[in-house]
């Protein structure tokens, strides 16, 4: 599995996600925002967390128009895997690769805390290491994670099973208390129609190590690597 981690000015969890990918056995390279092509043979393009272009204008808005994003769109259209975490999810929404928007958190503050999310389907290249309905214990760290979409889009996401994760309690119950950023339908992550593009707000890349919070994020990276192992 060859993964390319995109580097925009202001990306800051690029190192964390590269480390998680390597730990699961991926070969990791970097793609610079001003590049026009992904590295040769890229299986997975990763848009890491951070504050691309300072989050100025609107989170992800400027990055969505970076030269490298055309290459990412082409990669996705070919069926290549794309993963956007946190700011990466915001960029995917801004670039049209995923629908909807991420607004300011309901409490209008940045929040960083442990967070359980429920795995909505375990049959994708990202989630085969989990059970459907399983609650995984990872974290969030964002100021703009409040997902919303118009009624029609939401109906399509729900109807086609494109919701990847929902904020839940530790037992997988989707409750109002567990949905601290106020996302519609407690949505924490969504897929593209072909299930090859995943955007999510929580950070699985910081939970790949027993001594640092736990390993509930690791199965996601293992699954991605396994999906392109052949």
């Amino acid at each position, binding site marked *: 599995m060859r993964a390319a981690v995109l580097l925009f*000015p*202001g990306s*800051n*969890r690029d*190192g*964390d996600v590269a*480390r*998680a990918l390597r730990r699961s056995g991926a070969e990791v390279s970097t793609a610079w925002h001003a590049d026009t092509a992904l590295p040769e043979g890229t299986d997975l393009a990763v848009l890491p*967390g*951070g*504050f691309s*272009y*300072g*989050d*100025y204008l609107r989170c992800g808005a400027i990055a969505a128009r970076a030269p490298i994003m055309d290459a990412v769109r082409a990669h996705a259209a070919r069926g290549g895997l794309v993963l956007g975490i946190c700011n990466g999810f915001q960029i995917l929404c801004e670039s049209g690769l995923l629908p909807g928007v991420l607004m300011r958190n309901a409490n209008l*503050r*940045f*929040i*960083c*805390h442990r967070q359980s999310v429920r795995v909505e389907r375990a049959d994708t290249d990202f989630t085969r290491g989990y059970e459907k309905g399983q609650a995984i214990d990872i*974290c969030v*760290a964002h*100021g703009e994670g409040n997902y919303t979409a118009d009624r029609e889009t939401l109906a399509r996401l729900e109807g086609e099973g494109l919701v990847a994760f929902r904020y839940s309690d530790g037992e997988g119950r989707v409750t109002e208390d567990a949905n601290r950023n106020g996302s519609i339908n407690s949505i924490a992550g969504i897929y593209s129609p072909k299930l090859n593009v995943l955007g999510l707000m929580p*950070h699985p*890349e*910081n939970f*790949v*190590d027993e*001594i*640092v*919070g736990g390993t509930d994020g690791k199965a996601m990276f293992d699954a991605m690597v396994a999906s392109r192992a052949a």
Partner: protein
Amino acid sequence: MVASVGPISPELVRQHGLTAEEYKRFTDLIGREPTLVELGIVSAMWNEHCSYKSSRLHLKTLPTEAPWVIQGPGENAGVIDIGDGQACVFKMESHNHPSFIEPYQGAGTGVGGILRDVFTMGARPIAALNALRFGSPDHPKTRHLVSGVSAGIGGYGNSFGVPTVGGSVGFHTRYDGNILVNAMAVGLAETDKIFYAKATGVGNPIVYLGSKTGRDGIHGATMASAAFDDESEEKRPTVQVGDPFAEKLLLEACLELMASGSVIAIQDMGAAGLTCSAVEMGAKGDLGVELDLDAVPCREEGMTAYEMMLSESQERMLMVLDPEREEDAEAIFRKWGLDFAVIGKTTDTLRFVVKHGGKTVADLPIKELGDLAPIYDRPHLANTYEPVIAAGSVEPPVSHAEALLKLVGSPDGCSKRWVYEQYDHLIGGNTVSGPGGDAAVVRVEDGPKGLALTTDVTPRYCDADPVEGGKQAVAEAWRNITAVGGLPLAVTDNLNFGNPERPEYMGQFVGCIRGIGEACRALDFPIVSGNVSLYNETNGRGILPTPTIGAVGLVDDVTVRASIPFRREGEAVLVLGTTSGWLGQSLYLREVCGREEGAPPPVDLATERKVGDFVRGLIRSGRLDTVHDCSDGGLAVALAEMAMPNGIGIALEARDMPTTVPLHAFLFGEDQGRYVVTCSSEAMFALRQEATEAGVPNWYLGLTGGDAIVFPGEDGIAVSALKEAHEGWLPAYMSGSAAAPDGDEPPAAEAA
């Protein structure tokens, strides 16, 4: 030759914060009347913030050396050896006055400034901490300041991409008009790749890097050197505006440039911007500096030389480059979209020459600007001491359970989750233990080694007895690192005091320094960096003396450490260290009895070390994994903090408690040098025997278990009730739905 623009009036001199004597000292030095630019330069170099003129004499008495110290005070940050060719680079600095005037930007640029100090030395920041003090919760500005400062710290650190892993938040009416924002940054470098400010070589290019220069922050350092009054908010234009995005780019560009081998010297532009950085680089290298301001990248047109020299625009660096590598260096900065301009060169004249528009606007002797800055032995009064309060003289006004509930839900005793959840404390993937522990533990790269980090000070102790308070701040930091299993290595101090021209406040400063020095010597805990913030007062009333101690320790293996929560039921709970029931200056006396008075608990440094070394040894050999030090609120609050995370209670047993100490004093007294630990009942006998043989006093308190904390002779209090009070106060206060502490009691702070 420098042409003077006109007579410098005494009023203009005063506006620049210089006394008549200081101005005369300067004109004697240069042998003529200065230009306005020169007056601006000397005001920046000789103000309290940059020259340490009131504090230098006393700071010299502090211990700064140890075999593991690579760089002590005097550089951008301190550097210690942490083994394996790695160095830890760290420092703490205040941004008090700007944060009071404009809390979001003030706190944010405080974080930005300290991060820059660390990466200027070639280190990648791996952790940030802070220490915050606000006014009384019922002061009308407090909510606004808590909200703005928390968001500002998060806003900068989160975007920059450093985990903010620890800190402290306190409230007291003495900070009503002058809050404290102390920010600490910790970085990691290789011991043979540390960068310094000292310029070398004549004729080398001096390069300006980073953001453009604007009119923000002009005279910020002078503001930091004056007391506040009611008009201070009109100083808002002197508060800098931060751009964490630019700083993140500057970090990456600087580290890339350093790795390329083209950097000879580097200095960040902090207080007094271009002036301080250029003078320091030249003076440290025994070289002159010539600057051409026409080449400085400016944000707006028509900026004068005076404005450029004093601007405190953020995210800027000055470097001396290897002339042969100039092009490579420029390419790196262009790649990151940052300004890069050669604005001068080093010379052999030992003069600081500034040109603008083809004219020389300043020509000053560079060494003397720093070396001949005034230094004062300010008059200081001997400290006054409060009487020792005998434990038996304090009657418990409420049950122990009720007292505990009140303490864990008090402004100083409550959980600060509302604040630290706004900080990204997990980025980096190395936060083994984040906010809420005794010390944070951050793994170094892939481990197994880690750093234990903490910030500590108990201002009410310092106010009541500066020497003991200074000792206690150091001892508590040492203890917090010990409590996670770390070996305490070194300290950065952030000394926040009132007006040094007032002998009683200068006396507090001198006393605290004495205490800090004594403790650092006794504990082999050298001070490697720091910052002094004086003139913290409003309308003539000084803050509580607040010498914040930031400390770093080494954990050999992060998988072998201790943390606070009770993990298992049925374990024996012991307290190690001496308990005399010291209630003077305790949180109990203030919050429960409404009295803020008495002598603070003394620190016996020999005992501190003995008990701490014993506890650390047990943690490191894997025999203790649940440890908590006793601080505010004493033993009872420590037990509550251990019980709340997992909802495991404890039933205290009277049979082993000292009969000579009243129970409420035993539970709530704040005797120093104590740790609460748990072990299996089977291991307890041997452990107590070893403790006794090592001369470590120890008491058995009871067994963990149940869902309540039960005091002898009382009904228990549910751990869930404690947790609700503990977690509830700050969110309720910030939402405005609750709380200023009981209105029917006189504010405790008035008592002093």
